[in-house]
């Protein structure tokens, strides 16, 4: 069907130019800001223009030289301007095929196709930046036909109903409200404003300043409040756009996730690649029982940065988890109702560890800058608070197949892993630990590219030994 070598959609040129500019944007921005209004600015502008033309030409040639086709059960890609690169990916090796549509893709009815194999490379093995949507789906069908994936949408009318979960609008709103992204936005606005200031004419700036300073305090507070609410709304909007229409469907051997209002993402997670699942609750979300449910998977799934988590559900309450897992991922039992707490003897270690550096800072400040004593003091109090929280969060639980560890850096993280997904198990004990009958557990998992090591500090030593008996294959 697709055995003829073919090119990408011409729009691929646009994406390639945009991608290059994205990488250069800071350089360009810095140039524009530094020389704005200068005579040099003309040259800079000309330079950018020239660069654009060259890059576009380059991208066009690149597009001309890029071909893909499917033959003999292989996806074959030929590319490269000077160095020709042929890549053949066998159908059997393909782990997942993700379709992503950005805004431009959606206007032109295109899609990006990302193909993953089990390899541990940082980049996606194959990426077609722009093909028509119907072709994208055809590619997916073609490359997956020997697997059990039934294509969504078309087959909805069929007898087999696959279990699925969607996000409700209320939940989406709650997710935005508690996402904490407002802090990031406020930061960006401040940085942005300090730069924009240069472009505001002096007289206008002075006038605005003097008006602001002469206004009543109430008005200023009101203004600040309005700005804050606007920014918060922006934060919520961001979440809504990212996770809008989130839907997860369980097929026989894989999970299928679609999400996004503007940029639409479709991704598949083969069940056998799931290494662990986790439930993360930030400090804002935890009091309400909300958190995000994520999976650790082997090999790059997003084809993106290493810490981009793959969400099974962007916001869910702890008490809904067992039902959710039963529908979508019955292979995993629910998270335990309650985890076993670590012994009281551990308190000392948790408090000292959290407070050590702030206390050192406090002492240093008291010696050198005694008049700002309150800053480090607050810091020390916060650190001790964090230590107490961490100690309260720490816990563990296990049964025949599953181990759950709960711990906290800032957010509370509960990780649930299967016995046969744990790569290595380590018991650590310092001299101080030994005296108290405590030990630290370190469990290694495979995630995106390297490993993730989950530590539970200061468990009772007897429990660590029981746990290592549980893990040991030697009976």
């Amino acid at each position, binding site marked *: 069907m697709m055995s003829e070598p073919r090119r990408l959609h011409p729009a691929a040129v646009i994406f390639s130019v945009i991608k290059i500019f994205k990488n250069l944007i800071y350089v360009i921005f810095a140039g524009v800001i530094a020389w704005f209004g200068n005579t040099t600015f003309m040259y800079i502008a000309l330079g950018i223009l020239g660069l654009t033309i060259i890059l576009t030409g380059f991208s066009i040639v690149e597009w001309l030289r890029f071909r893909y086709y499917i033959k003999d059960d292989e996806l074959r890609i030929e590319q490269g301007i000077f160095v020709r690169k042929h890549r053949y990916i066998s159908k059997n090796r393909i782990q997942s095929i993700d379709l992503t549509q950005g805004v431009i893709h959606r206007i032109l009815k295109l899609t990006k196709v990302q193909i993953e194999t089990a390899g541990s490379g940082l980049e996606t093995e194959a990426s077609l930046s722009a093909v028509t949507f119907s072709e994208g789906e055809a590619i997916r069908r073609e490359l997956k036909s020997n697997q059990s994936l039934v294509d969504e949408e078309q087959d909805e009318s069929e007898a087999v109903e696959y279990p699925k979960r969607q996000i409700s609008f209320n939940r989406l709103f709650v997710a935005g409200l508690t996402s904490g992204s407002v802090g990031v936005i406020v930061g960006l606005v401040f940085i942005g404003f300090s730069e924009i200031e240069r472009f505001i004419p002096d007289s206008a700036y002075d006038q605005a300043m003097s008006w602001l300073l002469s206004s009543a305090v109430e008005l200023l507070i009101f203004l600040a409040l309005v700005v804050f609410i606007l920014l918060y709304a922006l934060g919520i909007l961001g979440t809504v756009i990212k996770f809008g229409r989130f839907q997860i469907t369980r097929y026989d051997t894989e999970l299928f996730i679609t999400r996004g209002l503007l940029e639409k993402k479709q991704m598949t997670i083969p069940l056998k690649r799931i290494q662990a699942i986790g439930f993360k609750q930030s400090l804002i979300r935890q009091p309400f029982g909300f958190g995000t449910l994520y999976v650790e998977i082997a090999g790059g799934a997003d084809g993106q940065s290493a810490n981009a988590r793959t969400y099974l559900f962007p916001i869910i309450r702890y008490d809904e988890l067992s039902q959710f897992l039963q529908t979508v991922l019955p292979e995993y039992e629910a998270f335990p109702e309650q985890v076993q707490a670590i012994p009281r003897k551990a308190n000392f270690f948790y408090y000292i560890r959290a407070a050590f550096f702030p206390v050192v800072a406090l002492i240093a400040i008291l010696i050198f800058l005694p008049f700002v004593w309150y800053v480090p003091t607050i810091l020390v109090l916060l650190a001790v608070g964090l230590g107490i929280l961490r100690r309260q969060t720490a816990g563990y639980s296990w049964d025949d197949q599953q181990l759950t560890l709960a711990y906290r850096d800032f957010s509370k993280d509960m990780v649930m892993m299967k016995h046969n997904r744990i*790569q290595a*198990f380590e018991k*650590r004990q*310092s001299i101080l630990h030994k005296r108290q009958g405590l030990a630290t557990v*370190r469990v*290694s998992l*495979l995630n995106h590219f390297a490993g993730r090591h989950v530590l539970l500090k200061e468990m009772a030593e007897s429990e660590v030994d029981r746990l290592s008996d549980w893990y040991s294959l030697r009976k």
Partner: protein
Amino acid sequence: MRQPPQHRIAEDAIKAWRITEVIVMVILLLLVIASFIVGHFFDWALWIPLTALAVWGVLAYLMIFVIPLVRWRRWRYEVFDQEIYVQHGILIVSRTLVPMIRVQHVDTKQGPILKRFNLSNLTVSTAATIHEIPALPQEEAAALRDQISELARVDEDDV
């Protein structure tokens, strides 16, 4: 699992590590000497290079005489059919279990110093971690490598 692993690594490990540390400490000593010379030309207070020398002395004593010995005493390993069990650490003692079915590959490595003593390091890699058993007698390391890679040859069960 409460028993530590049984086998020790080769006793020559202590000598090999000491030689390595001596080389490192000699380089550091050169830096300390340099600080005396620089201090002389730039009129530093004499206590600065003297402290450096004192710190070097303590460090050298620890690194050359104490640590290799403690390290050797702590290093234990045992290879079972189902898993590898390793203990190491100086202040913090850690005991690691690596199931055979998780082992991806085994390497033996030998630098010039280890070669003099006919020793090699053995490293075992899983998909997420790397574990080392250092300074085994050459032949033993090779045999162990072959044994582990034989035992690890179990049906592939997705990573």
